[in-house]
């Protein structure tokens, strides 16, 4: 129920975004998000875009993991 999938915003019109989920195009509602732009990656949950995925933060998280070292 709480699963959400990432998708890329292709076009925006009124309260709807056409998004691509792994190449499959679907319309989702943007009623829950302001300031969406084409090219944004969003999380889709039961037909609604619920949050933008921040690519910079995604990279930062990976870099923290890469540099982690615990001395015994």
């Amino acid at each position, binding site marked *: 129920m*709480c699963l959400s999938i990432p998708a890329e915003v292709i076009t925006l019109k009124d309260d709807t975004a056409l998004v691509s989920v792994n190449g499959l195009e679907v319309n989702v509602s943007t009623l829950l998000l302001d300031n969406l732009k084409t090219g944004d990656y969003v999380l889709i949950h039961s037909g609604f875009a619920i949050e933008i995925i921040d690519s910079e933060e995604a990279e930062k998280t990976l870099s923290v993991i890469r540099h982690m070292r615990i001395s015994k």
Partner: protein
Amino acid sequence: MGRFDAYHSKVLCDHLCEQIHRLAKRPLRLMEVCGGHTMAIRKHGIPSLLPDIISLLSGPGCPVCVTSPSFIDQAIYLAGQSNMIICTYGDLLRVKGSNGSLEMARTEGKNVRVIFSALEALEMARREPEKMIIFLGIGFETTAPATAAVIIQAKKHAIRNFFVLSAHKLMAPAMEAIVSNDIPINGYICPGHVSAITGTSIYKKIVEDFRIGCVVSGFEPLDLLQTIFMLVRQAETDRPALDIQYSRVVKPWGNQKAIALMEEAFETVDDWWRGLGILNASGLKPKASYHEFDAAEVFQIPANNISDPEGCICGEILKGLQLPVDCRLFGKSCTPENPEGACMVSSEGSCQTYYHYEHRR
């Protein structure tokens, strides 16, 4: 999803596991509350990668698992009324009430339709004005804003034949109930998509008053391992804290627009949870200003109290006190094909994930 493939990297997973093994010195019980996490943890075999002293427990965060059987009875009652159509997410279809499931009701010819989005129910109401469309609102803060948005749209466009039967619930009261019941837990793997909406303030009390670490986690293997690493570090240094691992999606302040919609359409009510009983202000129902869309206000629905099937220990499992394999019905009379209890119904339920990923190993 190609773009985020690195979150599956075997090299980085091994690296994280090594760090966890180095760091973990004392036994820890970590609870994941979200059903999506339960599924991801079992699917990726995360427990087998961890030191034996770390146990992962599933909590009360699968919406289908905590929903009351009387809610199903109410939905089936409405589905049997002339001119009414019940719209539900597919997850709820096979949960049993006192007299079968919505799926069985549909087979008997009652009007039950499966939808993917609350907006579809509203569309149906527009298309079929002579019918009364009842949307079953279930789920936590991830799904509640969508229901709120749809109720507000219904009012704005004066759609008079659309109603919501709400079993929406809030995540934090259940997490607080577990720790205040003295169930031993050393840290919470907090739900990523609930937190994307709510932000992190809902966990403040758990960290500050109960001194239990809370880390908001993503759903990929690296996300979960990093979250576990963070919780182990907190426990080993005795510094429980509120942290976000899933920072590419979750902001401390959450999704303000979604929160505003929920506050506009809903108010909190005391609500029943499987395993935890009735918890204060843990459920959501439409506010007085939206009563005309609240199926529970508009229709006379008979209420009855029923309990779980004899022998089912879902309630104990949802509190992290027992495991699915402790249930004598598990894998025998209760299977995903023929579920007895709610935790076997949903693909995110503890019993079903155990059945698929552990039982057969």
